């Protein structure tokens, strides 16, 4: 199985998760872990950069569903950015654009967070 990696960094006070590789049922727990640790640190403003995400399965999509409620209740949000057309199609098929804000570029998402502050 191909690898999956998560990079966590901060951009102007916003937490950015960088996903890389295959996000499926085997690797989904890694992403859950990343979200859990952010939430436990009371970090609710999260941008997920999908630039290097090459595949996402329904189990991967489920991870976002698991945390979005908590995050929004704490006046935060999960915004998704930089998706490849293929990955976007998967999100789109399921109707994620109706549920999440998806941006072409990470900066747009960060700016959106800052504006809403």
């Amino acid at each position: 199985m191909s690898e999956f990696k998560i990079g966590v960094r901060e951009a102007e006070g916003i937490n950015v998760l960088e996903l890389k590789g295959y996000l499926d049922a085997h690797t989904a727990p890694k992403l859950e872990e990343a979200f859990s640790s952010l939430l436990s640190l009371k970090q609710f403003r999260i941008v997920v950069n999908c630039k290097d995400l090459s595949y996402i399965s329904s189990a991967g999509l489920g991870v976002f569903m698991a945390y979005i409620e908590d995050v929004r209740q704490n006046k935060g949000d999960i915004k998704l950015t930089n998706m490849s057309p293929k990955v976007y199609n998967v999100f789109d098929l399921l109707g994620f654009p109706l549920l999440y804000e998806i941006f072409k570029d990470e900066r747009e998402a960060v700016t959106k967070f800052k504006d809403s502050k």
Partner: protein
Amino acid sequence: MKLRKVLYGAGVGLLLIIVLIIDVVRKSVDIDLSGLGLMRDIAILCAFVLVFLLFEMIVRTRDQSPVKRMGLALVGSVVMAIVGVGGSVMLEGGFDAKNSILLPLSYGSLFLATVVSALFGVFAVGVLRFLRDLTLYKRKRGTQRNLLIFIGLTLATSISTLWLKPLEREVFVSILYGFAIVAAVVNSFRLSWIVYLSKREKVFGLVYGFFLFSVFIVLNIAIQSGSISRALLYYSYPLKEFVSLVCVFGNIYFGMAFVSTLFHLPTAEAFDRKTSELSSLHNLSKLVTQAFDFNELIDTVTSMTLQVCEAKGCWLELIHTNEDGRGDSLIKREDALRRSFVGSYVVRIAGMKNITHEEIDALLPDGVRTVRDAVLEERRPIVVDDIRRDVRFKKTGRTSVPTGSLVVVPLISHADVIGILYATKDTEHGFFKDDVDVISAFADQATIAIENSRLFNKSLERERLIREMMLAQEMQRKLLPQTLPQFLSVELAASSTPAFEVGGDYYDVAQLDEHRVGVIVGDVSGKGVSAAFYMSEVKGIFQALNKMYHSPKDFMVKANEALFGSFDKRSFITLIYAIMDIRTGTVMIARAGHCPLLHISENRGSYVRPAGIGIGLGDGTVFASSIEEQMIHLREGDVCVLYTDGVTEARFKDDEYGYDRLMDAVLDVHHQSATEIKLHVLNSVKTFTDQEASHDDLTLVVLKWRGNGSTQPIEVS
């Protein structure tokens, strides 16, 4: 066989009677036929050879213990000593010596000499047989040869006296006699049977050996001197030499046996123990291969441990890293549970002998570091020579600690301590290195046995689960349509294959009313058992709602209402629902996050993708506002394909099957029947993945519009 015995017996009797007759005749009629004496001696020799053969046939003593046979030999030799002493008194002065020839002075002496000689002859044959069996015990190369040399020399000595008169002495006879005695001495070192006697037997052997040695001295004196000697010489010089050599051999042999037994006595106990250790280990390794009764196995291990090191008490603990002791569910007693102080091990006392839970707790109290923890950490046996004085027991600070010594041995499997075996003795310094070695060897065997037993239970459990899964698979298969309705205007074909035993894919076809047919395909996120449960829930909802809502959008909204919130947060369901009017070929489509419908019309393909989020992703209003409905009109020959992402996401290396390949595959054969299209697509996916096992559930429903507008269903065979 019986006939032969009788014949041999009769032969012996006949020969001895002939000899007696000759003797009587010789005494009464004073004749001297030189040939007669030789024939007489040969007859006697023949008689005793027959006696030997007769013994071989009648007496089966080989399997008896040597000590028992020593006892028999002792009885025989005491009888012979009495005969010897009695005979020599009665025969005193019974013979007259003249020209080296002995003549009986009376018929009484003659008879008595005959009887005594015959008895001695028979006795000597018996003793020889016994000595033969003893020397040949655990024979080595040369053992038999040495014995044959002795017998050969004895017979040679005997035969060399055939031509001599009873009182004649010849140097070569003495030389042969001497060689025979040397051979007897050599053979007397063959005493290996003593080693294998138990201690008790050795004590008996010692006593028997001593008395046998003493009695044989008496016998030898009688044979060599006095009137018995004369009687034997008179009767037969060769017989006398034979008897004499056998008795000397016996004397030397039993003397050696006595001394050897004496030396073996101190080590007898150790030897006994080694023997029992060996047989215990052997028994245990036998048990390893057959014991599936866990409790019986533990019981055997503990009782054998007691046996091999003569411990007073013994117990066996099983170590679990967590509460996973399912394989050992037989041990349920609460008082058998302990916890290690170091690490987080759960300790179960699986079996105990001659020790109580209170005593164990006194030795290994809770809440402090004990030898148990030391063994868990060090993973090697620990010997406590004196429990009271040992520093490891200082901390317990209790007076109830028993006195004595303790040995603790870990059971190690794959670098994990799976159990600990303890043995206690009342005495201090009770366990030596060899005890620890044997208990360790024991622990190793026990480890294998316990592991075996656990594996066996695991495989039972596994088999049970496999059966359950097969059942679940069968059940789920029954949730999917067994047959599809067929209509003159529309052909239907479908297939669904789970990636594992059960899956989360769902499809169904239902006739809603006279002219409307609903086709639904769904995919529960995730795979396996949890997905299968949701899948069956979807089936229930579809069956319940499809007749009530004739708009696919309405159905979707109601389905979401029913399912939203009843899922795990990260689970959702995607659905695509098409309702077709089989008169007009109008199809209404709603999609809840599912893969788009593939529509092939006049050699062109397109994906129909009305908006809509997955079921479970949003609450009633969010969901309802997201769902759109789209209508398409089918023309004659049009094909619709509904499928799950198992088709488009079928993977080969880093590539996906994708939408384009799916469309191409259908376009290739779109003018063929629905079933052929279905088979072609499945084949195409299979070829693409190069037969790799699919990692997702895969479902495909093909619908082909014939366009004659008939509402008549056709019967399916």
